[in-house]
């Protein structure tokens, strides 16, 4: 299982290609790519979004399901999905706490 990720051009925000073809700011909204066809379609969408100056340097990441939750396989991607492990008040992890409050 994979997802396509990138940074948004205008502000650098970490984004993933969402199910509806938009770029979303949380991994939970990412389009989970489970077939070669889906991967190819996502990559084409990535190239298009890059050309349209929405995002920079899209790439595929591996995902896994841990305790029912979708997680990146690589630690680097886990940190990208959440924020710095040393500053829980920053990055996406902080936003999630705010919205949950």
């Amino acid at each position, binding site marked *: 299982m994979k997802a396509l990720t990138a940074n948004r051009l*205008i*502000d*650098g925000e970490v984004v993933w290609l969402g199910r509806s073809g938009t770029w979303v700011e949380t991994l939970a909204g990412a389009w989970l790519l489970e077939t070669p066809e889906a991967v190819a379609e996502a990559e084409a969408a990535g190239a298009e979004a890059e050309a349209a100056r929405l995002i920079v340097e899209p790439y595929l990441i591996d995902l896994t399901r841990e305790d029912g939750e979708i997680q990146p*396989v690589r*630690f680097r991607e886990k940190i990208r999905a959440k924020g*710095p492990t*040393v500053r829980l008040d920053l990055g996406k992890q902080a936003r999630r706490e705010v919205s949950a409050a």
Partner: protein
Amino acid sequence: MYRYDEFDAHFVSARVDQFRDQVQRRLAGDLTEDQFKPLRLMNGVYLQLHAYMLRIAIPYGTLNARQMRRLAHVARTYDRGYGHFTTRQNIQFNWPRLKDIPDILSQLAEVEMHAIQTSGNCIRNVTADHFSGAAADEILDPRPYAEILRQWSSLHPEFSYLPRKFKIAVTGAPHDRAAVQVHDIGLQAVRDADGNVGFRVFVGGGLGRTPMVGRLVREFLPEADLLAYSEAILRVYNRYGRRDNKYKARIKILVHETGLEELKADIEAEFAEIRDGVLTLPASEIERITAYFAPPAFDVAVGDEAVLEAAIAADPQLEAFAARNVHPHRAPGYASLTISLKPIGKAPGDATAEQMEVVADLAERYGHDEIRVSHEQNLVLPHVRRRDIPAIHAALAEAGLAEANAGLVTDIIACPGLDYCALATARSIPVAQRISERFASPERQREIGDLKIKISGCINACGHHHVGHIGILGVEKKGEEYYQITLGGSADENTSVGEIIGRGFSYDEVVDAIEKVVDTYVGLRETPQEDFLAAYRRVGDQPFKEALYGTA
């Protein structure tokens, strides 16, 4: 300190306009990322894990209160309320938006700051001893020469596309606090028997994946030849340095592959071509630049020492602070003061906007408006009256900046690591934090004494781990963070590269391992004055291996 003339001001402001235009063209689609990337890097803009990162140059680590306040303003307005002081005496902001960066640079230009030479394959921001112009042991203030090198190297047309980045460091003291021997060019200012100023010149030092100690190529380079000789070195490097492999492109590899004697001959031949030409430094120009760095009018009053001593006697925390963070100054009644950016358990080198403002206020009120950034990621007030130290200490304590740990086991250098950096393979900051917490007891730190721990989150070695007395290198192994320990490194006048002690440790194990190394040292040193390096050089790695891995 140096002040911009009309050319500098125009140059920096034109550069901001140019970058504003480049950003607009990128956002409008007139530039692709491939076209834009080298342009943004030339302006200090990286794309990191979570966001863009802006690295701002602090030439030879010197800034004034107004500039520090502007950095605080940038932190608060455009970033997340803090900045990170780096191992090259610069500052990084971790969260700026690309669209805001031209405005940030414009605001910085108003206070004579910019982000030029903080990235790319050019001559980078020149670094220097953070106690320049203040240290009691200094032979010569290196800042005028660092400034002359800055002016010569800024957007030098011939050296804007070098094989790889190029770093120059200058010191003016026999005790090297600028790590000159691990720079592409290291300069140590000296005087000859007749009092003439010159430089010992080291070439080919560097860290990264292939650490090397710089080689002495000139015992005494007359100051007038500083630029011509530097240009000769750069020309030889630019011509022969490898461009086929970025990992073999630094001048240290050229020195290694060519051989010192042949390379020296190449440099001398190039130097012979250009010496006594336009690059010869006129004495009048050296004097003109030196005048910018004239020492402040030191106000020597009697009784200063008694004031400080009385305050120390009444305040154990001040006593600890004075013992570690106060350094001898060349002027009687004065001291240089280290403001530790390593409070126990905090990220090394980070300062909040509020803390930056406190430091700016203190510099203005007590420190002749001068602040330094050290490559050890601390701040320095280079010129304070000793009688003012109690008041400064009190203000620092209120701001959480009075940690009395300069040069101790918790004064750890750490790169941003995998928490921020796109190149990192493991985290650095939380390892530093956990070590800091483990050794938090002030008594224990004092008992251990001087000790330099340096942590890098990848092989590029921004955390200078090779030259830590204890170095830690984070790598990724089978998807897990793993930490290699090196021992015996040093970046002073007796520079050495640390040696890997054995197999690495997991994230969970590494702090215990460091504690074992430290305890082993304390147990085997002959006297409390025998520092870690001296002990390690005396006994070798065996006792440490046994402590870490057992005798089997």
